[in-house]
């Protein structure tokens, strides 16, 4: 269906090739996953398929790419619109109309379909993607997963033979991501659609993929079945890392497989020993805090305390009150009922330098904090605002990402680099409370582990209080000391990470599911635990 024949690509104003002599064939009905570090060329590869590269970006393309027998060098992307559907990372960026039905029809209108055909197709897609009950809804009122389903629907409505998705779930929470991926799985199996998808949270998609194209940092590409690629790929989900660390014969792609391979490691009583940290004094005190938006209750008499040296993850569904809680602590709004004090002060009364030194807040979209035209200017402004020596913010940033280009525009950075920049801007003033709303959206494994290291050292070494709102269970397992679970404005659970995550299978990280009933959350925990247990076994 898709053939790459010794393809090389060079972008304009660039001296090195993105791909060199790349050849592969994707058959009809295959689901192929493209993996690689950020900036390795995943998006370029996907956009080569429908000719957006180089027709829209410029550049030199050598070799030949053909899709269903049509060469992309001879046909412009518009001429392939009926054959290839493309879905981007953030569905909102691609919508042109206001309601679900109009959005579905839009592409067909542009391709001049007959009205009766359009009518039939819309009904068919509404059923296929379970969107019928949303047909008249305004797109902006839909949840992230529903929006991404509409985006997939508006690509499918043209009856393409190939569907190309560029990180379709990275802007979504795990529940929405699950929704989108299960739809894709069904499309591949029911319609025989050829799907090419790039993702960086492999734990979600790995089970669906027939083959993987792995692009390494030096531009080399490999295409093979998942088990082979994952044996050595540096990009892998936690269960694969676990299997490798335990020296299992093969790597599994699902919790079930790995669990069956590790029965021999679980037939002893595990030690329950978690390293305990001692925390400092209470930094944030929340007493019977309530907040309402009109009739809607956002928070109901919530009382919590956060200490210095403690990393707390706040979890819960969208709309459970996480963001409202954070905004109250930051002092964006006066609380309607109850009080909050941060180091003895009402946060709404903190101003200027005092505020910078007390609370650091990183919103869901970190780039909202970036207003200057280059990384260097952003850092200089931060030095000025915080009264630091010239260059200290940049020195901090270089420690996080040594390769960052100081002249780059902040919006041209990769997600990971942008988050590092924002972290540097916020952390260099050493706020006593660091608050992050959904920090891992759009981050690859490398950027995530950088975030984990930064947060742990900030909290443990400097004795600061860190709060994170997140859906990402694996991140919580790695970084948090304590988990607060919110539902409908109430605190439903509040306890150590281990207790809260293990109490429900829905929230358990992959390693815990494999190793259950042993209380190990991460690969490191499991290795340490097994070593301790087997060491003890041999002594007896």
């Amino acid at each position, binding site marked *: 269906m898709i053939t790459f*024949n*010794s*393809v*090389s690509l*060079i972008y*304009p104003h660039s001296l090195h090739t993105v791909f060199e*002599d790349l050849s592969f064939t994707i058959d009809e009905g295959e689901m192929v996953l493209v993996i690689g570090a950020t900036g390795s060329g995943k998006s370029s590869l996907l956009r080569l398929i429908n000719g957006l590269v*180089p*027709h*829209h*970006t*410029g*550049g*030199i*393309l*050598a*070799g*030949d790419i053909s899709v269903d027998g049509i060469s992309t*060098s001879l046909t412009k992307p*518009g001429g392939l619109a009926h054959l290839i559907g493309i879905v981007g990372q953030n569905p909102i960026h691609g919508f042109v109309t206001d309601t679900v039905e109009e959005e579905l029809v839009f592409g067909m209108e542009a391709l001049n379909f007959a009205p009766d055909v359009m009518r039939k197709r819309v009904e068919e897609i509404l059923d296929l993607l379970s969107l019928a009950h949303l047909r008249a809804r305004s797109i902006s009122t839909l949840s992230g997963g529903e929006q991404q389903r509409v985006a997939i629907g508006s690509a499918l409505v043209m009856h393409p033979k190939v569907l190309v998705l560029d990180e379709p779930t990275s802007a979504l929470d795990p529940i929405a991501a699950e929704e989108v991926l299960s739809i894709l799985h069904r499309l591949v199996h029911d319609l025989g659609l050829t799907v090419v998808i790039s993702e960086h949270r492999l734990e979600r998609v790995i089970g669906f993929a027939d083959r993987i194209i792995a692009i390494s940092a030096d531009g080399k590409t490999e295409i093979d079945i998942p088990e082979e690629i994952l044996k050595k790929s540096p990009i892998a989900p936690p269960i694969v890392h676990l299997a490798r660390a335990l020296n299992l014969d093969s790597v599994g792609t699902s919790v079930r497989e790995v669990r069956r391979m590790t029965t021999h490691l679980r037939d002893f009583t595990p030690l329950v020993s978690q390293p305990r940290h001692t925390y400092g004094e209470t930094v944030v005190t929340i007493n019977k805090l309530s907040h309402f938006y009109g009739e809607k209750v956002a928070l109901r008499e919530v009382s919590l305390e956060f200490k210095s040296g403690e990393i707390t993850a706040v979890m819960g569904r969208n709309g459970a009150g996480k963001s409202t809680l954070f905004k109250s602590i930051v002092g964006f709004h006066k609380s309607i009922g109850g009080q909050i004090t941060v180091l003895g002060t009402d946060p709404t009364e903190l101003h200027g330098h005092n505020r910078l030194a007390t609370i650091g807040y990183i919103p869901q979209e970190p780039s909202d904090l970036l207003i200057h*035209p280059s990384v260097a200017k952003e850092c200089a402004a931060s030095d000025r605002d915080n009264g630091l020596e010239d260059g200290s913010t940049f020195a901090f940033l270089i420690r996080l990402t040594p390769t960052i280009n100081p002249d780059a*525009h902040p919006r*041209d950075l990769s997600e990971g680099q942008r988050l590092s920049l924002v972290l540097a801007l916020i952390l260099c003033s050493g706020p006593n409370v660091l608050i992050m709303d959904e920090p891992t959206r759009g981050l690859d494994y490398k950027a995530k582990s950088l975030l984990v290291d930064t947060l742990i050292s900030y909290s443990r070494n400097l004795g600061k209080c860190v709060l994170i709102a997140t859906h990402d269970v694996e991140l919580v397992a790695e970084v948090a000391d304590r988990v607060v679970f919110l539902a409908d404005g109430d605190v439903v659970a509040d306890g150590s990470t281990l207790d809260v995550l293990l109490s429900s299978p829905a929230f358990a990280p992959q390693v815990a599911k494999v190793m259950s009933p042993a209380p190990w959350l991460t690969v490191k925990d499991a290795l340490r635990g097994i070593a301790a247990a087997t060491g003890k076994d041999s002594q007896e």
Partner: protein
Amino acid sequence: MKDTKGIYQLSLQSKVVLTFTSVIALAGFVWPFFYVGNLQWIFVVAIAASAFLLVSEVGIGSIDAKSIALLGVMSAFITLLRPLGAGAAGLEPIWFALIIAARVFGPSWGFLLGITSMTTSALLTGGVGPWLPYQVFAAGWIGLLAGALPQRFAGKLIRGAAEKVMLIVVGIFASFAFGILMDLQFWPWVLGSSTQLSYIPGGALSENFSRFITFHFASSMAWDIPRAILTSVLIAMTATPFLRALRRTYFKAAFLTPIEFKSALQIKN
């Protein structure tokens, strides 16, 4: 900072059509000085038809999907700006955006932006009437002018403060020119025939011209001056970030970057 060229060039054929329609449109503005009788409606039709002709002419030319998308986005932006000023007392916050965008993306695109943004914003403000074709052409010319400003002076790129001053001068010129052009299409009808400042059909050119100038200064300077001040202030305040954002778009969207296809063998050697 790299040089920026206009994001697309009119073909020779389009340039001929543009010149021809502009001459008709200009005649539509100045006929009261030269002709006895009422030609207004003929020119309204002629201008509308030639604007349509022009748009369709350039539409089938070299303009690509990205330029059209940009044209749509900027027209929508200007359309949203227009009701903010409501046009009262000449406070029209649209000229600065047209001038700055045309500066970055070139004269041909600037002309189109003037035409599309004036047309779409008229729909939103309810300003559709016999004056619309005149406004559309005047806006197109302003876009053309701002886009045609030199990129270099004595071999050096014009950027920073010099560029800002140049744009402010154009903004002031455009504000007054627009006022004069709008008065021209309005003056023969507004006063009746009995006043000192009225249009005299068939009167001597010098007589009518001096009456028009007096009328213009008496009636409309009150609109032109606030328009010029507002436009200058907005350019002075927004030019730096606005130009930066648009230039970044220019390079990000890879306008005019060469696309080449080679066989696999060629690149290896």
